[in-house]
């Protein structure tokens, strides 16, 4: 096989002005604001997929759907210190909680899942949750 024409083609492509110019700057893809709020305020402990660290940070992957079904569970999710004491506004916290249920749950999210609202967060957030572990265990034991 004659390699000449083939190589000439390769040289033409490799040496064409386009090939030698640096690639145009890639468009930066912004992280969606709700996900960015999760990253900045929750991900440090709960990790990118919500799995946490065994024995230190509980996984949210199995509990979010269960807790978000009942008003007591929703109250817990808002009052848990990492959520209630975060610098997020009521609306931002509501959006992050809904995002977590939809994106970090290992279980299927029910079709009738009700999004958290700023009003709901405001109603629960101001009263502190003192006994976090026992409350969580009690809410999940029925499941």
């Amino acid at each position, binding site marked *: 096989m004659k390699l000449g024409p083939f190589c000439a083609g*390769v040289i033409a*492509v490799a040496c064409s002005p386009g090939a030698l110019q640096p690639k145009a700057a*890639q468009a*930066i893809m912004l992280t969606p604001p709700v996900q960015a709020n999760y990253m900045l*305020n929750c*991900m440090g402990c709960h990790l990118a997929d919500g799995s946490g*660290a065994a024995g230190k940070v509980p996984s949210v992957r199995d509990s979010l759907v269960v807790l978000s079904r009942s008003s007591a569970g929703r109250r817990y999710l808002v009052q848990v210190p*990492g959520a209630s004491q975060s610098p997020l506004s009521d609306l931002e916290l509501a959006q992050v909680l809904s995002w977590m249920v939809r994106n970090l749950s290992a279980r299927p999210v029910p079709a009738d899942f009700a999004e958290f609202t700023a009003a709901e967060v405001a109603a629960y957030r101001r009263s502190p949750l003192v006994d976090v572990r026992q409350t969580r265990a009690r809410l999940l034991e029925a499941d």
Partner: protein
Amino acid sequence: MRNPIDALVERMARGLARRVSRRGFLGNVGALLFSAAGLPLLPVARGASPAAAGPAAAADRGDPQTCEYWRHCAIDGFLCACCGGSAHSCPPGTEASAVTWVGTCHNPSDGHDYIVSYNDCCGKSECGRCLCNRNEGDKPLYMPFKSNDYNWCAGSKVGISYHCSTARVVGVAK
């Protein structure tokens, strides 16, 4: 009696010598090598590759071994880039603590604010090189998820021994 393998190889070598000039052979080998090096430059569906979280290489200026490097805007510890690792990877023999704190740093080269995860590398004694303590956005210990004063190795699986800190870009805030 001649070995049949010797005879076969001799026949092939003589045939090759009759058909191919030495210069032509060398030229073709050279062309093959050149084209092999050139092929990766061809435009093969690069647009389909997912955008990385970090800035383009041209916009990632600065030396990761210096405290002034833009990703280190809120780091507190020894730079892993000086300890056998890099700005985003742990040195051999250490393990990254998954649990950590996350902040943003402004990249002056492209004007974006990147979300940076400051994962500590754990399991060995302190590296001791390139101590860097910059505290942009750092909050007091009573806001633990915004504080860089914690030893985040407390959340690792290999124990609390702190070695160095990385600064991993995980997203773009704005």
